[in-house]
Each structure stands twice: as structure tokens, then as C-alpha cells.
């Protein structure tokens, strides 16, 4: 092969992902707070995969705001699997890109959500503002940190949890809207992703309370300076169900369906569930959840499907352009 041939071939290989790639690669496109969990899970899965007599697989990770990540996949990021913050974002893969079938959520157990989480409060040591429940967040002198529900999946769970609380305590949608409007008036910084908010609260020391994924809050306690914070569990929160899906269009093109499906199934295995719990996700497997019962406070949890008629209703009503969130922001 002449140098020119070689140069051309290597240039071409930059542009064309050839089917001849020796080792299989698997791209997991995920949302912000799962980095640490999947870093460890990938190693465990690879071991399991090889024990079963397969070639090792290179697992790539991409993280960002959940909506942003779904959009990237729709725009052509070749994810084999997506592990996003909420079903609404995965739905878009069907609606806009036709990358997965409409019934994707029925393909895996528990509506394709191998682990769950919830929304808790992270406050500064000693809880100087005495924050106990959602009502404390609308007091005029409390600064609340939460990301932008338009871009962040976690923020949408935050929003719905606050809404559910207000609705139960004050009755009507109008009053619930007035409540969340008051709450968002107390938000001084609205980051684009859950991680951005945690950084704002923990590192830049802004705000009195952070509305956070439970796993994110635990993680913050574990990090440097974590002793300066404590977790407060509100009287009512929401069952956050982050779903996973194989992206059919991409795995069929790349020939990775088998490993992609094995990867997601392994999330339901005992080891997968234990790793999830280790990284502060609530395991679906009841036996393993019981092993970690001291770690997770018992909470009264509402669900999107029962209390909000699923994401297909909640997303347009609250978060699309002109929805409730836009209304409360423009009322400012």
C-alpha cells in the first residue's frame, strides 16, 4: 500500500464508521447524575459479558442534560442504548426520530425503569432556615436552587413534586400554580442541568436549599465538604423513574443488538441492582432494596402515571412552550 493509499484510507476511515471494527463498542447516552454509577456498572458488565464467553466490549459514555442528550440522539448521535432521566425524553426518540418503536417502555420489566429515585432537599449544616417541607420553600427569605425544567429532566421531577404537594394541600390547579410560582420566585440561579445546580449550591455556596435527585444529594454528602450539608426528606415527593431503552435503529445498523440488550438486562440482575443501590438509586428488586433499607428514608411518593396521567400529558401541559412553566416565568 502506497503512502497515498494509506493516507486516503485513514482519512476515509475518519469519516466512515466501517463495519470491520474489531472490538464492539457500545455507546450509552445518559443524563448528568449517572456518571459515577455507569462508570462502575460498565466494568461489572464487561466482566459478566466475558464470563459468558464473549469478546470484551468497549463501552463509551456520554452525559448531559436529559433533554439535550435525547436531542443529540435524534440528531444522529449513535447511541446503542439511552438511559435518560424521564420517559418523556425517550418518547421523543420515537416521535421525532422513529428510532425506537412506540411501545418501547413495555420491552423491559417495570416499564423499562430498572431503578428509581426521588426528589429530596439538601440544606446547609444545622438547617439554619429550619426547612422541613415544601411549605418552607415559599417563605420569602429562602433561596431555592433547582435547574431549568425546560432542559433538565431532574428539574421536571422537582417541579412535579412541588405541584403534587401543593395540589394535595391546597386543592386546585390554580392554587398549585400559585404555589410553584412563589417557589420559583425564590430561585436565584436556574442552571441548565442537575449537576450545574449542585455545583452552584455546593461549590459556589448560593442558596439555602437544593432540590435534588436523592442519589445526587447523597453523592454531594460523600464529596469533599459534604459534612457541611444535610438531607431533608419532605412529607411528600415523587417517584422518579429514569427509563432505559435500546435504540433499535442504531443497534441494527451497528450489529450490536445482542450486547446492547444484555447490557440493559444486566441492570436488572442482582449485581446491577446492588451497584445502583450503592450509587444511591433505589433498586426495583425488593430483596436488594431491603438490604439497603436503612439508606433510603421511607417517603410518601406520587407517580407521574397515576397523578399526572403520564408524561404524554404532563410534558405539554407543564413544560412545552406556553405551558405552565412559561406562564409562571412570564408572570415574574
Amino acid at each position, binding site marked *: 500500500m502506497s503512502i497515498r493509499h494509506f493516507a486516503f484510507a485513514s482519512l476515509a476511515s*475518519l*469519516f*466512515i*464508521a466501517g463495519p470491520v471494527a474489531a472490538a464492539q463498542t457500545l*455507546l450509552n447516552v445518559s443524563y*448528568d447524575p449517572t*456518571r459515577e454509577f455507569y462508570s462502575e456498572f460498565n466494568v461489572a458488565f464487561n466482566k459478566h459479558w466475558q464470563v459468558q464467553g464473549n469478546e470484551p466490549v468497549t463501552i*463509551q*459514555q*456520554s*452525559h*448531559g442534560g436529559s433533554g439535550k442528550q435525547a436531542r*443529540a440522539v*435524534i*440528531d*444522529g*448521535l*449513535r447511541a446503542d442504548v439511552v438511559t435518560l432521566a424521564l420517559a418523556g425524553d425517550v418518547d421523543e426518540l420515537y416521535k*421525532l*426520530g422513529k428510532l425506537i418503536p412506540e411501545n418501547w417502555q413495555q420491552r423491559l420489566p417495570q416499564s423499562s425503569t430498572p431503578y428509581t429515585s426521588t426528589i429530596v432537599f439538601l440544606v446547609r449544616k444545622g438547617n439554619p432556615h429550619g426547612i422541613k417541607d415544601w411549605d418552607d420553600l415559599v417563605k420569602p427569605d429562602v433561596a431555592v436552587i433547582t435547574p431549568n425544567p425546560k432542559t433538565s429532566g431532574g428539574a421536571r421531577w422537582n417541579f412535579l413534586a412541588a405541584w403534587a404537594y401543593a395540589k394535595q394541600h391546597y386543592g386546585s390547579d390554580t392554587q398549585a400554580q400559585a404555589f410553584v410560582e412563589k417557589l420559583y420566585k425564590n430561585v436565584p440561579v436556574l442552571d441548565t*442541568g442537575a*449537576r*450545574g445546580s*449542585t*455545583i452552584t449550591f*455546593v*461549590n459556589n455556596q448560593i442558596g439555602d436549599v437544593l432540590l435534588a435527585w436523592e442519589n445526587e444529594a447523597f*453523592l*454531594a454528602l460523600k*464529596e*469533599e465538604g459534604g459534612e457541611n450539608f444535610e438531607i431533608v426528606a419532605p412529607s411528600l415527593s415523587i417517584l422518579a423513574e429514569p427509563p432505559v431503552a435500546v435504540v433499535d435503529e442504531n443497534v441494527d*445498523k451497528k450489529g450490536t443488538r445482542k450486547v446492547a440488550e444484555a447490557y440493559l438486562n444486566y441492570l436488572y440482575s442482582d449485581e446491577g441492582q446492588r451497584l445502583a443501590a450503592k450509587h444511591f438509586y433505589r433498586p426495583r428488586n425488593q430483596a436488594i432494596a431491603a438490604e439497603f433499607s436503612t439508606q433510603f428514608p421511607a417517603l410518601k411518593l406520587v407517580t407521574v402515571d397515576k397523578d399526572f396521567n403520564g408524561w404524554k400529558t404532563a410534558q405539554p401541559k407543564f413544560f412545552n412552550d406556553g405551558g405552565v412553566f412559561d406562564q409562571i416565568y412570564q408572570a415574574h
Partner: protein
Amino acid sequence: MSSITLAAGAASNAKRRGNAIGRRVLIVSAWLVFALFLLLPLLIVVSEALKHGIGTFLASVFEADAVAALQLTLLAVGISVPLNLIFGVAAAWCVSKYSFRGKSILVTLIDLPFSVSPVIAGLIYVLLFGAQGFIGPWLRAHDIQIIFALPGIVLATVFVTVPFVARELIPLMQGQGTQEEEAARLLGANGWQMFWHVTLPNIKWGLIYGVVLCTARAMGEFGAVSVVSGHIRGYTNTLPLHVEILYNEYNHVAAFSVASLLLLLALVILLVKQWSESRLK
């Protein structure tokens, strides 16, 4: 006559005193701006990076994903800078050596990317090459990946750095005129000989200066690359994107360590720039 000289002397003495105060004020404020605006951010990057000692710093810089990000950044710079270098020379050549209708429009178009937000630069490539975009479906059918892969990162980088070399060369070559080239031609040199032996030596330092600026911007581009990167760790993360990721991972020290690596590269670029500039004068 002597009284006039005296009066003038007194006036200029008074002025000198006034000047001396003005001079001091200006120098002190120059120092203040320098310290507050340039030195302090630089020091904070280094001090945050070394907060936990040199060991953590080195570990962060040599961590596999950081090394992969550095390689990708260098590769993207290595492709996009030569492209814009050739373009810059060609553009400066036709603009400065000939007069033709529409020349000022051409110069404006060359400068255009300066006034386009990097985010828009990323957006336009998504609109073009994204799966929902104009030629995205065709690319997908032929299994060609542009955005969320190296080609997209290079395209975005090229876009934001298009004007740099051309902008340095155009005034320089216009100032030099065409006599030397004409003489070379009359002496029998062909086009390439004339370019290599006459034009290139004349524009050498301006060229280096332009390349240096182009390299700096290409290395640090964030907004445009962020839109088209896909953020796959170890694969499509450039160094500036990696800084953001580490920053978002509570990995403050690692973020600032990688940032100080970029800072070091920036200082090297400044040195080369200073050197080429001094040769230019």
C-alpha cells in the same frame, strides 16, 4: 526673544509636571488592570489546580480521558489550522494583488464568522448534517457520520477560525504592493517560484502571527464544538469540553488541572506570538 523662550520653557515645564502625574496615573492603572483582569484569573486557575498538591494535578492531567481529549484537540487543531492557512494565503492573494468588482463584499464575507456566535456556528452544521437536517438522511443512509464525530468538530472549529490568517495577511500584502513579484516574473520565475522565493519570505512573520492566533482560537473553541460534539468521554470530548465535564463532576481540582494545561498552552502561544510579532516589526 529670550523671554519668549523662557515663557515657552516654563509652559513646557508645567506641562511636564502635569504629564508626570498623568503618566503615573496611567502606568498605575495599566498595572491594576493587568493584575486584576489578567494575572488574578491566571493565578486562581493554577492555585485551584495545585490545591491538593502536585500529585493530584499530575494524576488529573494524565488521566486517560484527559489525554484522549488532548489528542482530539490537537488533531482538530492540526486539521483545521492548515486548512485555514491555505485559505488565508489564497484569499489574501486575490484580495491584495488584484482589483476586481465585489472585492469589498468578499472581504466582508471573509470576516463574517467573526460576528457569528459560536453557538450559531454549531447550530448551522446540525441543521445541515443532523439526522433531521437537510442532508442528514442521505448521510445516514450511506453511514457517514459528520456531527458527533471528528468531521463535525473540525468543521465547527474551521468555521470560527476562518478569518484569522486572511485578516493578518491582507493588510500586510496590500502594504507590500506587487513590484517585487513583478520583478521576479520579468526575471523568468514561474508562478510557484515567485511565490516561494519572493512572496513567502515577505509575509512569513505575518503568516506565523495569523497561524498563532488561529491556533489559539481553534484550541479553545467551546460553544460551537459543544453543539456538535456529542460529549462521548474519551472519544469526542475536546479539552475545553473536558474541563466543563470535570467541573460538572464536582471534580474541581481536576477541572482546574486540565484548565491549567490549557493555560500553559495559551502561554506558549503568547510567547510564539510575541516572538513572531517582534520579527514582524
